[in-house]
Structures are given as C-alpha cells and as structure tokens.
C-alpha cells in the first residue's frame, strides 16, 4: 500500500466514522443486547432485581425450537407473508401500469386515494376495516345481505380479511415506486423497441421489466420484511391472534408468549430467530438475482 493510499484510507475512515458510530449505536448495540438477553432467564423479577440472573446458554432456543406451536405459527407466518407480498406486488404493479395509461385527473384521484390508505395509521386502518366487516352492523355484510356472518371467526376468512387489509395499506408504496420507475425509462428506448416492431407485450417483457428490476428488487425485499413482521393488523383485527390462537403470526406470538408474560429472554430468542430468518430470506433472494445476471 502506498503512503498516499494509506492517507486516503484514513481520510475516508474519518469521514465515515460518524455514520459508523450512529449505525453501531442504533443497530449493533441493540442486536448485541438482544442476543445477550436471549441467553438468560430474564423475566420481570430479574429486571427489577428481585431474583438473580441465570445464564441458560441456548436454553431459550431449545425451548422455542422444541415447541410445536412455534413451528405451526412460523409456517403460518411464512404463508401469510407470502400471500401479502404477492398480493401487494400484483395490485401495486397493476395500478402503477394503469396510472401511466390514464388521464391526469384519474391518475390524481388514484394517487390521492392510495396516499390516503398509505398514511392511515395501522391501528386506525384495522379498526375501520373491522367496522366495515362487522357481523351485524358492517357495511359490507349489509351490501352482501349476510348480516350476522362473522368474518373474524373462521380461520381462513379471518386471515383473508387481514391479508386484504395489509395489502390495502402497503400497495401504495409499490405503486408509487414502480410508477416513478416506469416514468424514468427513457422515451428513446421504448421508441427504438417500437421501431424494431416489438409488440406491447414484448416491450413490457423484454424492455420495461428488465429496466425496472432494481426497483422491483427493492420493493419486494421491503414487502417481505414488512409483511413478515405484521403485528398491528393481526393483533387488532383478530383480537390478539384469533379464536384459540389460530390466527397467530410470529410477532404477535412473541408478544403474547414472551413480552406480555414478562419472559424477555424467550422473547429475545424469538427476535433473534426472526432476524436470522429475514436476513436469510433476503440473502437468498439477492443471490438468486445475482445468479440471474443482475448487477447489484
């Protein structure tokens, strides 16, 4: 390494240090604490000093992974998140394409409506949906003429309803981002394709889609992370995990089994497992894309 390169490295490090410090403080330290707590029997008694700390090693993890319900909830969470991600992407992409083809006032209306859904707080949105789908007084049941039908009782209608709500409040992000992406494609490229005689479908498949790939990548990863971590909608709409806990997802499960029960050690273990899982999914997705020739 030459002297100047070393100097440059130092300067770069100095410039990066503040960001590194903030990242370290905001990310590394909490994760370190999370992992640490997950290795202890750490309940309310231990927090407030009423009982001594007990080091369990991997005890919390053994406990968790040996629990049948955990695996059931995990499978449910993955399936639920997958449906939400696919739904969000499809609805978002469809509306983004629609937005590029309609007149300005229609597009403005669409965007305003989407922004409304986007900016509604999750608790408020969930409650409004519950009102709409109320068994006796709900607007939806009145229109369909099925008063008395409970949407939240059956496992699958309850999951369906919550999934629809999650898609409703997360599609705007996908739509707006993809719309911006489509708009940013240079006109000449599309013109060239048209001059070469490509059909609309061919243009979309071979020109627009590849150009949008980086954006689709970002919104997909975002959606996976969001939908895997859904808490509010399930907690509010199924009253804390549904009848007999059959609508539990991992985050609500962690809250109920661990944090509400003051089992912070176990809760931290669930948190670590979730982080590892999400990192794993994201890495897998990134590698799959890289293998398909995408420059990341």
């Amino acid at each position: 390494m030459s002297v100047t390169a070393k100097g440059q490295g130092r300067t770069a490090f100095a410039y990066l240090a503040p960001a590194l410090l903030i990242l370290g403080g905001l990310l590394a330290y909490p994760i370190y604490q999370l992992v640490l707590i997950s290795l202890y029997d750490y309940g309310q008694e231990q927090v407030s000093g009423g009982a001594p700390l007990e080091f369990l090693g991997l005890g919390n993890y053994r406990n968790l992974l040996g629990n049948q319900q955990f695996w059931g909830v995990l499978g449910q969470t993955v399936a639920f998140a997958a449906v939400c991600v696919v739904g969000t992407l499809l609805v978002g992409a469809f509306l983004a394409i629609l937005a590029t083809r309609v007149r300005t006032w229609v597009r403005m209306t669409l965007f305003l409506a989407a922004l409304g859904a986007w900016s509604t707080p999750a608790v408020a949105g969930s409650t409004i949906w519950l009102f709409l789908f109320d068994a006796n007084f709900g607007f939806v049941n009145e229109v369909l003429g099925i008063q008395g039908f409970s949407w939240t009782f059956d496992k699958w209608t309850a999951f369906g309803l919550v999934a629809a709500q999650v898609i409703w409040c997360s599609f705007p992000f996908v739509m707006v981002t993809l719309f911006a992406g489509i708009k940013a494609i240079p006109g000449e490229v599309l013109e060239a394709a048209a001059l070469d005689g490509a059909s609309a479908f061919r243009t979309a498949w071979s020109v627009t889609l590849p150009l949008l790939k980086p954006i689709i990548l970002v919104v997909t990863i975002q959606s996976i992370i969001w939908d895997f971590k859904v808490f509010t909608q399930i907690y509010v709409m199924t009253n804390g995990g549904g009848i007999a806990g059959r609508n539990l997802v991992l985050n609500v499960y962690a809250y109920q089994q661990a944090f509400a029960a003051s089992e912070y050690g176990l809760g931290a273990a669930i948190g670590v497992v979730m982080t590892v899982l999400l990192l794993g999914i994201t890495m897998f997705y990134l590698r799959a894309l890289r293998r398909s020739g995408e420059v990341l």
Partner: protein
Amino acid sequence: MRMKTLVAVLGVGAVVACAPVQSGPTSSGTDEQTGQLRVWLFDEVNRGPKEAVVKEAISEFQGKHSGVTVDVQYIQVSSRAERFKAAFSDPKSAPDVAEFGNTDLAGYVSAGGFSELDLGKWDESKDLVPSILDTAKVDGKTYGVPWFVGVRALYYRTDVFTELGLKPPATLDEIAPLAREIRQKKPELIGISAGGKYLFAALPFIWAQGGDIAKSDGGKFTAAIDSAESKAGVAKYTELIKDDICPPATCAGNGGDASVEAFRAGKAAMTIGGDFNRKSVDASSAAGKYGVVPLPGKTKGSVAPAFAGGNLLGVMKGTQRKTLANEFTQLLASKKYQQKMYTAMGNLPTFSDVQKQVAESDKFLEPFTKTLQSGTKFVPVTPAWAKIEAQTVVPTMLQEIVTGAKNVDTATADAAKTMNAAFTS
C-alpha cells in the same frame, strides 16, 4: 493493526457488559415524616366521584400531619403493567402507595415491588372478610389491604322469563337446558351470553363441580384443570357456547365486557355479570327489565363459588416514607372511606359489617353479598399465574373446545401441560 484494535475494543466492551442490566428497589431504610407522599390510583371512565372521596381523605390526612402533602396520579388500567414494571425497575419514578388488582399481586410481590404490611395494630382489620383478605396474601404474608371487591352473579331478563313462564335456574345443571329452551322459543335471543375468553364466568362452573385451576402443595403449584371434577365443569361451561345457546361465531371470541354487552344490547336472555356492571346495564336497553340471582351451585339452594376480584391498596417497597404510607393506606381503606367509595362509585366494601350495611339499604346488592358470604375463590397466587394469563392458556383451552378443534380431555390435558411448565419455570 486497525482491525486488531477494533476487536480489542469490542472484546473489552463485551466483557464489561457481559450480562443484561438489572436494577431495582431496595428498601431505602429511611422513614421521613414530612414531604410529599405519592399515590397511584386507577383511572375510571367516570372518575369525578372517586376523586372527590380521595380528596376528602387527603385533606383529612394532611390535617393530621403537618408538612405532608399527598400527590395522587391516576393511571390507566390498560397500561398498568408497563407503569408498574417501570416503577419497580426505577424506584425514583415509583409511588409510595398504589392501588392494584388482586390478580396482579403475586407477580408484583415476586418482582420485589410491594412491602409486607402489618395489620395487627389496625383495629378495623379484624372485620375484613377472610376470603377477601386472602386475595392480598402471598405465602401467608399480607401485602395489601382489600379496598373493594367485585363479584359476579347471574343477570336475567325478567320480561323474557315472565313471557315464557320460566323461573331463574336453581342449579348449575339447569342453566343449559333453560338457555336452550329460550333460544328455541325466541331464536333472535342468545340463551345465555357466555364467552370463550370469559375466564371469570367459566371458573364458577369448574369450582362448583369441585375442580380447580391448580392445587398448591406447600406453595408448589400443579395444574388441576385436567382433573375429573374440573373437566366436568369445563364441559358444563363450554356446552353453553354452542349454536343452540350462544353460537361460537358470536360468542367464542368474547371476554367479560363483550358478553355483558350482548345482554345490554337486549340480545341475550341471561349473562354472568358483576356488581360493577350495574350502571352500564341500567343505561342500556335492558334497563328496568332484568333481575339478578346468585349463580346457582351443584345442588338446589347452593351458590357456585365466585371469583373474588377486586383491588388492593399497598405500600411500595422502595418508599422513603413508610410510616406515612402505611397510615394513608389504612385511612383510604378504612370503613369510613369504603362506605364513601360505595356511595360514590358503587364499589363493594371488603368489611363484613359494612357489606351487610350497604346490602340492607340496597336490595340490588343482595345476590352479590350472598355470593360473597357463601365463599369465594381465587386464581393461583403465584407469579406464574400472570404468565399463564398473558399466554391466554385457559381462554385458548375453552376456545379449542367450543370450536371443536380439541375435545375436553385433550384440551384440558394440553392446558395442564402448559401451566405446569409455567409453574416450574
């Protein structure tokens, strides 16, 4: 080299902070006779009358102790767990005296939050109803004074019963057939509004059969929910949440409030409600056409043991004004102020003589005081119970049965397994 420094720094950091943080109240040892006494009480929907009584007690207290001020903070019931946890972890933000639910007691005591009370020198304490005072005890030691008690009984619609020529049930076994008959004749009504999450309605059914949630052997708890008696009670209760009485689609997800709400809306012929539900029922479409009887037991004339809910007043362990805190607790929980609290809020007193007194002046209370006097029961007094409650073990068990996901044997066995895991952890 830079890398090595970094690793070294991280290593040192890891060694320094190699265990999660612990903090907590240690008895301060000081016992100041002046200054500010901090009190936490629960906020209520209609707090005005409660506040007025508390203010009266404060001015009496401040009149007796010069140089002492009492500062009351009203905290939300829904966020009490977080507030108390925070107070236990940081004594500086903690009050000296606090109101708290008796089901929270065991958890708070094991967290080291409340100090033991010596009621021996307090004359009035001998009139406290023993089974209610028991709800303030952990391992035989008293950590609070019962401030008021809440107990549930059977609400029924007098107009419906008269129209159909029916009488309120005389035994526990009569409830299901009676409720079924009402729904058959009046399909728009729920026979009895029971809920899959309504633990305190289910417990009397279990206790009446001689069962229990758990049994204690010298402070060591083991689940008893899967005993033959308990299973009989569970079966009796879950029988109510069926399409021909209280359809699961409507009732399985209901807790206490939602169950009473159906009765208030005029959609149910019976429900299990507390003395504390009176005001809200009187302000509903069921007003003026309902009656209350004790929930009947297994035999004619007996009363099913009810759950003795209620709130306690206690002194925090970290307090720096122990004597003052004790005196204020005894004043606010005294016969005089319990009587006033009854007039203001309708809270049932915890002294047997005061109970008798208020029941004589108000006929409505009779079924409730009768229930109280025939003996009440309580949930297991162990910190593990808070965990079992948070993990919704019993409601989940009831819901599994009413939805047909599991039969009574399997569901109770699974619940017992989860409980035993909590008891031994």
